[in-house]
């Protein structure tokens, strides 16, 4: 195989001495480590400052002399964090349930069923991924307030409905699952069909159990989006007791201005759950984005 026509003329590499190779490798590690330090430094800073006294934060110590665990309690009490937490958890669970329901069904339909209008519908869904929130924000707000269509219950402001229902379906999750479902061997389906299985039974009994990985990915992305949500909950919750974590944190930050140690403690509190989820599932996470990221 003659590659010299494929590739432009290349310089002949000098023979690499072991020393220069090790130097090269060391250089790479250096870059990686510097990068890692930059990326992780704010977290380190957050944690260390959350354990300092106010005086230590003012004088910019690097590490607290005595870890002030009490800061966490004080920050927790300083704002309604327990309520915010409960709200975030409830909203996330609700949203994920709905999201799984809609995405699995739709993903299966797009991936495995042939029906008229499938392409158009799918194209439509994909197109929604390009829409900026700004355009949908205001009408959605009016929608939630019951100003456009009458809603059960009058208005959904300050309810879990407003925080969950709009996010119970999104094109990204459907796309993810469709890719996976489409790759399931047709033999499985043929065999099941002979046994008298309809699509629903096939989906539930055969497809879902083997789709743990993409479903997990959808869950993870949905969890992240829901947990980190800020703009929409800010709009639709006016009462403090309904606010999820990020909105609550934002208010706390505005108020606790110069009290750095409490600020940091509050921030750490809000990060811990998602960090836990991430560390437990990070393999699926990165695999998940990787598979979607490649579809050019």
């Amino acid at each position, binding site marked *: 195989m003659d590659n010299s026509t494929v590739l432009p003329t290349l*310089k002949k590499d000098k023979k690499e001495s072991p020393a220069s190779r090790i130097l090269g490798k060391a250089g790479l590690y250096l*870059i990686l480590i510097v990068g890692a330090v930059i990326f992780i430094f704010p977290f380190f800073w957050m944690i260390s400052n959350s354990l300092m006294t106010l005086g230590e934060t003012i004088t910019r110590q690097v590490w607290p002399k005595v870890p002030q665990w009490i800061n966490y309690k004080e920050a927790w009490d300083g704002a309604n964090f327990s309520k915010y937490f409960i709200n975030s958890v409830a909203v996330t669970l609700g949203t994920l349930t709905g999201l799984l329901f*809609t995405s699995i069904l739709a993903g299966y339909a*797009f991936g495995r069923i042939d029906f008229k209008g499938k392409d158009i519908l799918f194209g439509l869904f994909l197109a929604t991924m390009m829409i900026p929130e700004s355009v949908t924000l*205001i009408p959605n707000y009016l929608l939630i307030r019951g100003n456009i269509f009458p809603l059960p219950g009058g208005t959904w402001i300050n309810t879990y409905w407003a925080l969950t229902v709009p996010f119970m379906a999104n094109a990204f999750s459907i796309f993810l699952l469709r890719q996976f479902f489409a790759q399931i061997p047709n033999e499985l389906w043929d065999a099941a069909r002979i046994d008298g299985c309809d699509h629903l039974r096939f989906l539930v009994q055969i497809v879902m159990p083997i789709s743990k990985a993409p479903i997990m990915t959808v869950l993870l992305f949905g969890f992240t989006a829901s947990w980190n949500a800020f703009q929409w909950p800010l709009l639709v919750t006016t009462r403090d007791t309904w606010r999820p974590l990020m909105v609550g*944190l934002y208010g706390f930050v505005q108020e606790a201005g110069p009290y750095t140690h409490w600020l940091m403690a509050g921030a750490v509190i809000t990060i811990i759950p998602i960090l836990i989820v991430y560390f437990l599932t990070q393999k699926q996470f*990165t695999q998940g984005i990787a598979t979607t990221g490649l579809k050019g």
Partner: protein
Amino acid sequence: MESSKELIPTKSSSAFKKQARRDQITGILFTFPAFLIIFIFGIFPIGYSIYMSLFNWQVTKGPFIGDKNYLLIFGSWWNLLVLVAGLGLFVLGFFVWTRAFQSINNGQRLAHIAGALVLILGGVIFITGWGMMYETGNKDFLNSLIVTIYYALGTVPAEIILGLVLAYILYQDIIGKEAFRIIYFLPYITPSISTAVVFQIIFSSRETSLANTIIGLFGIDPLRWRFEPKPVLNLLGFDVSGLAGGPSLALVTIIIFGIWSFVGYNTVIFLSGLGNIPKEIYEAAEMDGASKWDRFWHITIPMISPVTFYLTLIGFIGTFKAFNHIYVMRTPSAQNTVVTTSLLVFDRFYKANQYGVATAQAIVLFVIILGLTLAQNKVLGERVFYG
């Protein structure tokens, strides 16, 4: 599918039709819940936004005013026409240039020159149109577009390059690859509201803040970071004011925050993309004597171009949609040098309660994003090399 042919005896056409109809129903039924939600909250609002933008809508619907809200943005439709004409000519000139460039025949060289002229003409008309809009239209909105572009140009290329570099390094046999990957991805996964708190303190304008301490090591005076509305060119000594001087320091601080948050995402995606490049190509090139740099430049970059294209595309769209990062880092002192279009629309809606104007602005933003996407598709899409 031979096997299925054997297993399933030939069916009569009516059975097929029945199956097809059942499939049709099932298909529609399965996609219906998703369709309902996506339509109500994703598609219907676009139409309703257009509807709202035609009214003098404060908090409640006012009288119908047609295109007044849009005119508030552009000044007049003529302005917009001029701008778009300029843009169109610019694109035309680009086409003529690239077409003409490929040939060396003399007659074609004329087309080459013609192309350049059209380009310049287009550019001039575009700038004229912009100037006219600026005079009579909504300065805040137009400024916010510039700010958004600065933000996009500041974050996306950096994120792509850094992401690729880090991914490439990780791709070499590195010990602790997993650990590095986890660390790099951390900023992406943590909520920006929480991480912004730290960045606010690091980039605080106090002399003792971390950022000021670091630049102090280089002998630079403390800066006001998030609070500094002066453009960076100004700070470097050039005497330009306003948005022509580049992004303000406050915006640069936010850009740093944005890059920190998103590089990890790019790294992870690039990493898997790299994994898809067949190793044989590298080996063959190495046997032919290609240096490390050559291998990177002539193999990796082209082969990874679909990923690069994808990340650039969603990167740009993402910066136009970006909200959280900028909202939490904004200060009143930075004035409107950090107000991107998505923030502007939100303020007009939430603080000023001018729903009609806000929706008109949002629609214009949407059209711009659409245009950008199409443009990127055309321009960059052609450079993508599908191996």
